[in-house]
């Protein structure tokens, strides 16, 4: 996993070169060349560009080239006109985390807005404030800080929705440290706001405070996108991202809202009898099937009876088909490992934490190749003793049809002693 992510490292020189080219183009614009002229050259020179690159470049323009913030901001609308098409291109990605509505996509979207707010507006206003601490400037700064306080929602979602999952996977250190820094930033914004409201003429201290806010917020974005997010993507299952996305609205968003709800791609359900594809949202069909009967070699059960029987077995069952797609799980009163309906129609690989997927795959490969027909595991969990069995399900011609997971708490069985012959 980490090897994959490290590939990004090798892209850095390429990015540096690209940024040089972008900077040249920006300077041409600054010197008075027309947008159309530059646009053509831009497309020729750089196929696509990420939003990160633009903000890095804009930052470099201010820092290294000495172009005043106000100039860069004036150019900002021109950048947007030029880059718009290509930014949208890059967003058309097949990776789930790049799709609108995925929590990672939303976090990054917000980060771009936060960057714009602190690196342009707040930076510009604090530069002006340093020159002239007029009431007007103070109001503008207060405005910016009020907007920036919205960052609380971004941080809260990270802390309350994302961190618990990371902690579930044993990641404590980074989350604790980050939470502390988040708190520091929130406190700092509030403190500076208070100072501005009761401005005592100490321009110097306030300027330093504002600069600190800007740099801390930027650093947090860097940490989120370079450490936290890659780390989370390496651990969390798709199911967990779905849950985070669902709960995100309760906390709210910061400066940007996701354009759409993220719906991960699911494998459509295949009709039992006809073999034809039934979309899961076609509730009518599902209902009809529910009212029907299932004919077995050894009897007939109504759907209702079958369902009740399955759920009264003192075991948990989960079935995945020959394409590794989760098709069914029983939902008895005391399910040992929680399953949510969200897993149905998704591959089993998507329902396991990435670091244990290879074990699942290995087992499935042995089942499919016929090397194994079953595999058992047993673990002690509190007062339960859990016996987990996997069976390769094969048809009469020994063709692999799927895998059945069979989980049972056998502690009460193991505790049996002697014998019981009559009802007591």
């Amino acid at each position, binding site marked *: 996993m*980490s090897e994959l*992510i*490290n590939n990004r*490292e*090798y892209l850095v020189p390429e990015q540096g070169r690209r940024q040089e080219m972008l900077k040249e183009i920006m300077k041409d614009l600054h010197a008075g060349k027309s947008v159309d002229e530059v646009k053509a050259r831009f497309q020729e020179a750089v196929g696509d560009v990420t939003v990160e690159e633009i903000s890095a470049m804009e930052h470099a323009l201010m820092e290294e080239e000495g172009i005043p913030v106000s100039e860069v901001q004036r150019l900002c609308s021109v950048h947007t006109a030029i880059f718009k098409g290509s930014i949208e291109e890059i967003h058309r990605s097949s990776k789930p985390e790049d799709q609108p509505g995925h929590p990672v996509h939303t976090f990054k979207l917000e980060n771009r807005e936060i960057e714009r707010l602190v690196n342009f507006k707040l930076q510009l206003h604090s530069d002006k404030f340093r020159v002239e601490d007029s009431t007007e400037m103070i109001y503008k700064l207060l405005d910016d800080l009020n907007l920036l306080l919205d960052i609380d929602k971004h941080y809260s979602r990270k802390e309350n929705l994302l961190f618990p999952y*990371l902690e579930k996977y*044993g*990641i*404590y*250190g*980074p989350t*604790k*440290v980050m939470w502390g820094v988040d708190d520091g930033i929130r406190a700092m914004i509030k403190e500076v706001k208070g100072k501005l409201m009761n401005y005592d003429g100490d321009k110097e201290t306030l300027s330093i405070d504002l600069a600190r806010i800007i740099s801390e917020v930027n*650093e947090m974005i*860097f*940490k989120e996108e*370079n*450490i936290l997010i*890659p*780390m989370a993507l*390496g651990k969390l299952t798709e199911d967990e991202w779905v849950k985070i996305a669902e709960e995100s609205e309760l906390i709210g968003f910061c400066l940007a809202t996701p354009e759409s709800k993220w719906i991960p791609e699911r494998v459509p359900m295949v009709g039992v009898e006809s073999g034809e594809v039934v979309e899961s949202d076609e509730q009518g069909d599902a209902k009809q099937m529910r009212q029907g009967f299932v004919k077995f070699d050894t009897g007939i059960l109504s759907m209702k009876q079958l369902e009740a029987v399955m759920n009264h077995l003192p075991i948990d069952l989960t079935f995945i088909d020959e394409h590794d797609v989760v098709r069914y799980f029983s939902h008895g009163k005391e399910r040992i490992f929680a399953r949510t309906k969200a897993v149905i129609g998704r591959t089993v690989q998507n329902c396991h934490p990435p670091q244990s997927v290879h074990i699942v795959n290995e087992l499935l490969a042995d089942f499919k190749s016929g090397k194994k027909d079953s595999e058992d595991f047993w673990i002690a969990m509190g007062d339960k003793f859990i016996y987990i069995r996997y069976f390769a399900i094969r048809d009469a011609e020994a063709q692999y049809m799927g895998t059945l997971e069979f989980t049972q708490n056998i502690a009460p069985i193991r505790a049996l002693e002697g014998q019981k012959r009559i009802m007591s």
Partner: protein
Amino acid sequence: MSNSIDLRKTVYELCSADPKIMDMMVELGFEQLALPGMLQSAGRFMTIPKGAKLKKIKLEHIKSTFRANGYEIEE
């Protein structure tokens, strides 16, 4: 033993191959690296140049410290 540090490698890779690197990095100002779980999680995504940028420690200073301790730097 070849004492070299590949700056493209993650801090996790470097420190697990040679624990002395960890001590030096903590001394250089990467104290958080010593926190439990940090190396195994964040460390897998962190490289020395990234960390230097974040902690605002001059990369040159890090490199020269390692060199002074007998390491070669690979970039």
